[in-house]
């Protein structure tokens, strides 16, 4: 059984939701507090949504200094699957594990709404079970979700097929409709939408399963 560690920073709030989603998919999930210096025996890591350290300074800016983050960096460098959702994505960009940055939404308000994502690449631990061009209904829930990067970084993202998800109808002003990106090797992925919130038709959509099943399925194997 895949063992997934869900990192909890003070101020995180989607850790329970990530845990529930993993367990629904048959994985074993455990919470790892930010003060931990080791990840223990996990096959995959999720940085969940929320407001780590209150988003003080800017989202993710303080969380990158939490003790657990050096263990996460080592895990990622060794090829371990790492997924950052929403605030977790912001943390990964601040920590330098993913390129680019997230800035305030175009309309300067928080947005909680359904979006339709288009899978742009399957070369990542999150999208490998999906099809390129597949449309997935997954909600967003953020104030600072507009993806941005300089031109050189953007060109590199395109060249290395690192843009994994795009919005069909860009809600927040993200560059090139980007909703999620991976690192060059595809084992670290961040996205602003919440696939763990799209696990059941009772709650509006089950399309998030396509993404998270791929993520969990990968955990037991090595890349």
């Amino acid at each position, binding site marked *: 059984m895949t063992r997934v560690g869900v990192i909890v920073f*003070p101020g995180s*709030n989607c850790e329970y939701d990530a845990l529930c989603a993993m367990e629904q998919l048959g994985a074993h999930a455990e919470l790892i*507090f930010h003060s931990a210096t080791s990840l223990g025996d996990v096959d995959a890591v999720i940085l969940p949504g929320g*407001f780590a350290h209150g988003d003080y300074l800017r989202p993710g800016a303080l969380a990158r200094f939490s003790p657990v983050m050096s263990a996460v960096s080592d895990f990622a460098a060794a090829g371990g699957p790492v997924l950052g959702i929403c605030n977790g994505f912001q943390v990964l960009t601040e920590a330098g594990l993913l390129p680019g940055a997230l800035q305030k939404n175009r309309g300067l308000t928080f947005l*909680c709404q359904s979006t339709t994502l288009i899978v742009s690449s399957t070369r990542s631990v999150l999208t490998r079970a999906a099809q390129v061009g597949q449309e997935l209904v997954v909600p967003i829930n953020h104030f600072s979700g507009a993806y941005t990067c300089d031109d050189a970084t953007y060109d590199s993202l395109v060249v290395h097929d690192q843009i994994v998800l795009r919005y069909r109808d860009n809600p927040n002003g993200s560059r090139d409709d980007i909703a999620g990106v991976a690192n060059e090797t595809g084992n670290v992925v961040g996205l602003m939408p919440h696939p763990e919130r799209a*696990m059941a038709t*009772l*709650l509006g959509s089950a399309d998030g399963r396509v993404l998270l099943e791929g993520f969990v399925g990968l955990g037991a194997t090595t890349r």
Partner: protein
Amino acid sequence: MSSTPEPLHRALGLTDSELDDIRRVLGREPNPLELALYGVMWSEHCSYKSSRIHLKRLPSKGAHVLVGPGEGAGVIDAGDGIGVAIRIESHNHPSAIEPYQGAATGVGGILRDVFSMGARPLAVMDPLFFGTLDDARNRWLVEGVVAGISGYGNSVGVPTIGGELTFDQCYGANPLVNVLAVGALPTSRLALAVASGLGNYAVLLGSSTGRDGIGGVSVLASAGFSGEDGAASLDDAKRPSVQVGDPYEEKRLIEACLELLDLGLVVGIQDLGGAGLICATSETAAKGGVGMDVDVTAVALREVGMQPYEIMTSESQERMLAIITPENLGAVTAVCDKWEIRANVVGHVVEPTTMSDGTTVGMLRVRNGFDGEILAEVPASSLADEAPLYDRPRERPSDLDAVHADDPTEDEPVGDANADLLDLLVDPAWVYRQYDSQLFLNTVVGPGRDAALLRLAGPGLPASQRGFAVSTDSNPRWCALDPRQGTALTLAEGVANLACVGARAKAVVNCLNFGNPEHPEVMWQLSESVDGLAMACEALAVPVIGGNVSLYNESGGRDIDPTPVLGLLGVVDSLVSPPPGWNWREGDTVVLVGHRRAAGAHPFPLAGSRWATMRGRRGGRLAMFEASLLVSTFDFITDEVASICAGVTSDVTAVHDVSGGGLAGALAEMAAVTGLGVNVSRLEGHGELFSAFPGRFVVATAHAEAFVARASAAGVPVTILGNVGGTHVRLGALIDVAVHRIGARRSGALEEALELS
């Protein structure tokens, strides 16, 4: 403390006769610190001194009620070992002055009420009332309040699942910002705000204490805005009484407190809200019948030079008071260290004092060091429970007969019904898109529908297939015309909203927003409203398990319309499928369920309807609250939808309550969200289109014959209205509008009015 020549007690909001009461309690002159303590604890906001004699008339009992009014929150037994806690409050005056922080700290305060019961907060709702949006200051208030709720609520990690948005000129200088919170707990974790165990410690958890919010309850919440131009003239003077919120501190405080309760490390726990530390210490001591020594030097301070009265009455946010045994101090400190929150022992539970007549009294002593000088010494219960009760004069407004006689049902001409329909509809999505409404994976029906419906699940709860539904309802136009009938009808409206999502009403909490209680007309409105609520609660078998009273909502001498806001909590026993919502389908038959015509003088009363209000007609007579007509209809709809939620296949495809926008408004909303038109041929004029009285539902069915048969068997009247289909909403001879026009107008109306688009 004050450089004005007026006596100290008056500057603190106490009357001369209240000063005499204090002298009698103490048997001596109070010192200035003691006066300050009474000033906040005997404020209208803390003591309910003008309303308590009326609130006693509300029914609060029920076999499923675990905790009724008087605690941090009411709690019901929802089954499966799960208790559901609910509470509603106002943060009106702070929000009028500083909308972002006023609204934000309103959210923070209500959450502490809920988790002080041991419940994890799972949902927030925000009923909001503002002046009309043609005024720039009102637009500023709307944006600020919504941003404050969004900024605090999202960050603190509790979904905001709905609310209400009302605009009326009477709220111009005095907006209403109410907030309701729901939490859930394993019933074994239920915690109460009581101090017991001699030698136990009172530990102040959370934020440091500053000068923010001093006098919030007495200066701000218990007086009106007297300036001729309303709140604006008092902005600067009163702004220091508004507290500042920190959702990150609150989030860690929630996690720490729930962990302390889970580990059984706490004897009693209470939040620090209005009146701060003096309120929490005196109330817990009074409930436990014990004394408490409070050391002001043990309180962690945010600024230097704070006086004891400031430390005791500060309303600094994100603080809790836990009563613990001394041997658990180490374990408590360890949990607090983990969550990076402060924990300081600021009080000791001590024996009650034996008086000269042999009775024992739990004394609240404020000390300079636990062994140091006694700065204040008063009976804890005199602060917490023994404020004077006032039966203030009541008088029916002298103009009410004239208001009733000015009835739009009788003489308001029909005009352009198409244009009126377009003007009626406002989609509040601009507001609720700014709220995280989905956290915890529970939200089955989110904001913008009849009621919110959530799975009853969350961290640490026993497994359950149940769901809970919440709705907030108010109708100040109804209540201005007739506070008794209006409040009763408002409760009916709330129960109807719950029925639309298949939930049976289990409890109600009320937030009674009224004007100045020193005006006899306002006290008459309050008393009538309480009687109407009591009557309707009895008739619909829903107990009142908590509430809040907000008085002095006035500006420039004009009181707001009576605005009782009711928060309803319902339970769905099995929630495995979503309720039908408004999703009717091409070819469905559209049926009106419930009595087509109102009980009372007029079959289609327009008094108090949104249509009449829009045309400047604020008079007339309401429909009567007829319990027997309502109960069978509510039960039928609840059963129909609950069976769909339980996974049973049904011919019913859509259910919507007919409310303020009338039948035309309900049908147009359903058309707007589905993009499908509707054709209704027979209608009795514009009265039937726009009349607003509860107890009626629009249902769409794929099999009309079967549906009508079930309704007949249940003894519920139904009227077949027409069919779903086409590109237009066609209602009788009066309305013919394209669905896309309705949709565009409805979704853009709010942003346009706010001048954002």
